[in-house]
Every structure is written in C-alpha cells, then in structure tokens.
C-alpha cells in the first residue's frame, strides 16, 4: 500500500513556512531542555516544552500529516531520553500534533490570549492521552487531573505566549 502524503495533496492551508532546520532544531532543543533543566531548577519539571513545540508547529503549519509526524518524532525522542517505554509520549504528542494542525485553520492562533488558552487546554488534553495510554497499556495508574497538573497547565500556558512569540521569528516570509 502506497500512499502519498505530500502537503500539496492535502486539503489544508499551510500558512507559515519556517527556515530549514528550524523545526527539527527547535524540537531537539525542547527535548534536551526538558530533561536537563530539572537538574538545575527542580520546578522545571512542571514544564512541557516538547508538547508546546508540537502545539506551536501544528497550529502554524496547519498540516495534519506533518503535525502528527512531528508530534510522533518529538514524543518518541522524549521517551527515549526519559527512559520511558517508546510510544508513551509518542502517542500523546502524535494526537496533539494532529489535533493542533486540524484546528489551526479554524481558530485565530496568533492572538496571545488564544495561545494562552490553547496551551492550557492542550496541556490537559496531552495529560489525558498520556494517562489513558499509561493506564490501558502499561496498567499503571496516572492522574488525569490534579492540583499539580492545574498549576503546571497554568505555568505552561503562561510560558507558551512568549515562547510562541520567539518561535515566530523563525518563520520565513
């Protein structure tokens, strides 16, 4: 079975393009920071940089296929460096990338408030996917919602606004 998943064949609107290497470089850096920062700043464990990167590029490029593939790559890489079973974050980020890309064309994702709300909502969505996967496949309990998760989602939502603004600089005109 051979399927073509070229961007031109999809019924989507790719609005923004990025400089070569911006996407993979940003994704790589996000994962590295995610596993490194907690060593120096314990509170950094609240961050979900890989998810935010997946969300941003999904909303920006608005290509469901590319969005889910990017999420898959980021998630698997995150699993690998976190010494978690491959696929745990991979599944969660895949869905985030696909969904973000799908709604990117329907919402105003440039406004700061929308970015704040999207980051907040996708953080919880990401946690639900992660907890469900862990519960069903690994048969291990995981919180679907907690006070800590709420705080983390607010932190990530606040961080997402300047982060996304920074990433806008890598857009090609």
């Amino acid at each position, binding site marked *: *079975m*051979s*399927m*073509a*998943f070229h961007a031109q*064949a*999809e*019924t989507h609107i790719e609005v923004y393009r990025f400089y070569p290497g911006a996407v993979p470089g940003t994704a790589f850096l996000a994962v590295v920071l995610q596993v490194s920062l907690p060593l120096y700043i314990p509170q950094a464990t609240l961050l979900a940089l890989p998810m935010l990167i997946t969300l941003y590029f999904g909303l920006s490029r608005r290509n*469901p*296929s590319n969005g*889910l*593939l990017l999420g*898959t790559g980021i998630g*698997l890489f995150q699993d690998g460096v976190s010494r978690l*079973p*491959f*696929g*745990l974050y*991979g*599944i969660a980020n*895949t*869905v985030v990338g*696909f969904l973000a*890309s*799908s709604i990117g064309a329907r919402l105003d994702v440039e406004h700061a408030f929308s970015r704040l709300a999207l980051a907040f909502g996708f953080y919880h969505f990401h946690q639900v996917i992660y907890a469900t*996967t862990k519960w069903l*496949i*690994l*048969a291990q309990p995981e919180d679907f919602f907690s006070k800590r998760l709420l705080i983390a989602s607010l932190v990530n939502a606040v961080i997402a606004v300047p982060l996304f603004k920074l990433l806008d600089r890598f857009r090609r005109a």
Partner: protein
Amino acid sequence: MLAVPGRHRSLTLLAIIMVAQILLLAIQIKREQDVRLIRVWAVAVVTPFQRAGNYVVGGVRNAWGGYVDLRHIRKENQELRAENDRLKLRLSEADGRAAEATRLAALLEFRDAKPELKSLPARVIGSSAVASSRVILLNRGEKDGVRRDMAVITPDGVVGKIIEAFPDTSQVLVLTDKESGVGALLETSRTQGVVNGLGEAILALNYVAPFQAVQVGERILTSGLDRVFPKDLPVGTVLSVEQGNPFQKIRVTPAARLDRLEEVLILLAVPGALPARSSKGTSPAGQPATKNP
C-alpha cells in the same frame, strides 16, 4: 497504489502511527508472569479462531467418529446377538444337563434306597409314532440284560413294562396304553384292583367292589400280585370315584410323569417276579412266560 481521499489521508496516517506506537509499547511492556504485552495480545487475537477451528474440527471428527463407531457398533451388535443366541443355547443345554443330573441323582438315590431291586438306568430315546399306542424306546437292550416283561419305573412311580427287547434297545408299554395293566391296591384300605390304561393321560382302577370305600386323593400302590412290579411302588392318586355296576369307576392320576419321561430304571430282578422272557418269547430258563394282567 491505494487512492485515499485527501481528507482521509491524515486520519489514515494518524491511525497507522497510533497503531504502530501501541504495538511498540506492547513489545516493550511485560505484564504478569513476565509475558510481553504484544504476546498477550497476539494470543488473545488468535485464541478465538483457534477455538472456532477446534470446535469445527472437533465436530467433524466427532461426526465421522460417530459414523464409524456406529458402523462398528452395528457390527458388534450383530456379533453380540449371535453370541447371545449361542450362549442361550448353551445355557439351555446346561440347564438340561443339570436337570438330567438331578434326575439321575434321584434315580441313583432310589437305587441306593432299594438295594434289593437290581435296576438298570436307561434313557428314553424314542416314542411310538402312533398316537393310540403309548410305547417308548429305551437305549438299553438284551446286551444290557434287558428282557421282556421287566418292570420299568422312575423314582416317582410305575412307568410300564418291557414288551420287546432288542440287542441295543427295548420297547416299553407305558401304563397309559389301553393294553397296559398293573396290579394295585389302595394305600389306606388295602383294597386290591387293577390299574389299566385308557389311552389318555389318566388311568383307571378297575375291579373295585361298589361297597369298598375309596377316597379321592388316596394313593394307589403296586400290589406285587402281578409278579412284574414289586410291591408298594407308587402307581397314582385317586382322581375321581363314581359308583357303578358291577364295579366302581375310579379314575387315577399317574404318579410318574408319563408324558415327560427322560430317564427310567429297568428292574432287572424283582423278588418273586415272573421269569423275564427274551425276545424269542422264552424266559432265560427256557420256560414260556405267563401273561400279565
């Protein structure tokens, strides 16, 4: 190449990627008993088909086995029926031998009880072909010492007497024959008479005066006066009594089972009996034999 509508391509890719990652997790994860999750899923997927296949194969096998077994059972049934028939026949033969052994034992006991009566056991091997004649054929003859006019009895009672003695066989005139007769007396009153055959199953006690008391059920024994049968052997039982002129009409039930004779005793020597005659009509002493009543 599969043509997938554009709007479904991303969904298809999503599904593929998700399934791939789930399988990736299943390969890595171990559940209880250290079994990888992928193996648990693989077994779970295959098990219903295995069960279905096993069910179908088992059904076919059972049906074929049932058919084959049915044929074997039918054949076995036929064989068992045949064997059952053979065993029934053997059982019947065994029962017959057992009954014969009982009868022979009775004969032997009778012989031992009456040592003064020299007797010879014989088996009934034939009967007369004529309905009006009550004659039986025994497997003893002159070679065994059998002679005419010898008495033939069973432990139950009188049977008859030898009328013809051949080298290996002999004929007996049974008591029920019209030509037969035996000297008899009533056990209680000791009234004497003659028991004759009527050509039927019952006998007649003749020559009993009308004034003589005769009771139904009274036993009749041999009187010994005919000098053929020894005295006090059972002859029969009074069945009915009718007054008649000049003699009473007394019917008698034979003591011996004259219709079911199989083994009998031939009295070779009876104290005080008439000399027995050979087939030539003479007694062993050469004198002509007297006529029996």
